[in-house]
């Protein structure tokens, strides 16, 4: 048997030291956030009721519920998805199934990284310059949703591309050998095998879109509206902006009100995110190849 030398013992000590140090770092990173979430639940929980979710704000937004904001967020997310999902899937299909390894493909990849990295307020400026003014949609759900769609496009592209690339190359080759065209192969073999992964990406995008504030501030979301939106050309209230408004812009709001709004917003965002993660883990367990 080997005898532990002095050096062995010293090395083991170093290793244990670093292990503990890094574990502390993880804990220090996670604990404050969990404490903050706990505070939100404790302080916001009592404000939440069916009435809070399904009535209009009243008395200068100091009382009542957040129904118009909730409905507005659903409008914004749905319209944004209608624009970004088809475009994002097409982009991912091109990158995964068609693109050769050349400068153009590298430029596309760089553009995707940049699209995700441009500050959200610059996306807002783009939305104002392009959709509100140039295409003349005015401040509307359409303009705000398109701005959100541009901003969250990389989420769909990256998730879709990953699930397309997870489909084994042999599946495609087998199909080509039967004389199928590229599109027939994609539609009958690649997409059916990747569809659940794509869905995971879309759910993740819902979570991302619902929480954004800056891109919708000047493109279509209003501080307060006495009526509900009827078409994509109307303005709307939105949950994320509503939190900003009741937290900073409205005087004499009872403290439980913004906590309640924050709790509803973060619940929606984390719920969709958790759904996406659970779905992804389930799929990983299901995979047959």
């Amino acid at each position, binding site marked *: 048997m080997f005898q532990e030398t002095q050096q062995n013992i010293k090395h083991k000590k170093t290793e244990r030291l670093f292990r503990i140090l890094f574990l502390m770092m993880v804990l220090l990173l996670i604990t404050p*956030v969990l404490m903050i979430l706990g505070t939100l639940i404790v302080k916001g929980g009592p404000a939440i009721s069916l009435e809070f979710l399904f009535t209009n704000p009243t008395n200068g937004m100091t009382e009542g519920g957040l129904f118009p904001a909730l409905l507005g967020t659903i409008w914004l997310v749905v319209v944004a998805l209608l624009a970004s999902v088809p475009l994002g899937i097409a982009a991912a299909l091109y990158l995964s199934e068609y693109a050769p390894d050349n400068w153009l493909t590298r430029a596309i990849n760089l553009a995707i990284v940049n699209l995700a990295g441009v500050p959200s307020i610059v996306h807002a400026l783009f939305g104002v310059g392009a959709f509100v003014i140039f295409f003349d949609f005015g401040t509307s759900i359409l303009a705000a949703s398109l701005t959100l769609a541009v901003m969250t496009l990389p989420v769909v592209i990256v998730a879709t591309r990953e699930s397309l690339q997870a489909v084994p190359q042999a599946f495609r080759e087998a199909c080509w050998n039967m004389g199928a065209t590229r599109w027939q192969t994609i539609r009958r073999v690649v997409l059916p095998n990747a569809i659940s992964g794509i869905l995971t990406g879309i759910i993740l995008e819902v979570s991302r879109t619902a929480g954004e504030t800056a891109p919708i501030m000047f493109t279509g979301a209003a501080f307060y509206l006495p009526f509900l939106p009827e078409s994509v050309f109307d303005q709307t209230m939105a949950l994320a902006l509503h939190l900003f408004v009741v937290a900073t812009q409205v005087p004499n709001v009872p403290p439980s009100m913004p906590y309640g709004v924050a709790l509803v917003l973060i619940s929606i965002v984390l719920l969709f995110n958790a759904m996406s993660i659970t779905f992804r883990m389930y799929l990983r367990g299901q995979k047959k190849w």
Partner: protein
Amino acid sequence: MTGRAVNNTIQTDDSPDLDWYIDRIVQVLMFIGGISAIVLIIGIFIFVTREGISFIFNDLDFAEFFASPRWRPTSEWRATYGILALIVGTASITGLAMMIAIPFSLGSAIFISEFATGKYKEYLKVLVELLAAIPSVVWGFIGLTIMNPLIIQIFNVPVGLNVLNAGLILGLMAAPIITSIAEDALKAVPDGFREAAEAMGATKWQVIYKVVLPAAKNGLLGAVLLGVGRGFGETMAVLMASGHAINLPENIFDSVRALTATIAAELGETAVGSVHYQSLFTIGIFLFLITFMINLTADLVVRGVKKG
């Protein structure tokens, strides 16, 4: 290449059939989708520039813009457009945030990637992913309502909305993002490297310090750069937690104002086409160019790994 469906009866002519045409059309549609990201990124630059360009040519005094700390676009006597204080504000908040986020996220990434195992590792990864999903307006709200009184109480200062508050919030926001990108970079180091080192009798820490970290160096640097870019462009959280006062900060308890927050706070109150409105778009161009450069550098750094 055309790969069209071949009829198994005697058909030898190579004239394209319907499937061939569909295939071609779809290929074009996919290509359009593929280049959409490039079109959009150029579109963002063009449309933001389009609104700000006349300010750059007519009203912009470069020396004043970058060197004057006086941002007084609404002054009736003489409007001045100096963004120095805003740049210093953004830099001080991002700097403090990175001082907190970088060591903690690299440490966390090493722990998750190298020390944690099995279910435990999965749980930590999920938790980090969920933390990264918290919307920035919620972070801003936390800075405003939870951190603000805490800072006033602990440090006995009159105002809790300052560089410290915004820096802490931004650090907590950026950390999960840097952690998960850094963790990917560590995961990309082939297990063969670790096994070879272990076979030579190296302890776990020696493997990490002498083998894994040098191999993942560029990926980790890329993660840090992306984190800096994210912090630099953060808007709502910084707007709500920084105090939003135009100020050259002397210490971390001074309130400051960030570039992004200035646009968010003022754009709603300006008339379309006014000089003030155009100056905000000019700040937007500046932000776009800086983040573009940061992302480009990160991309080049990470690409260096793949080549080397």
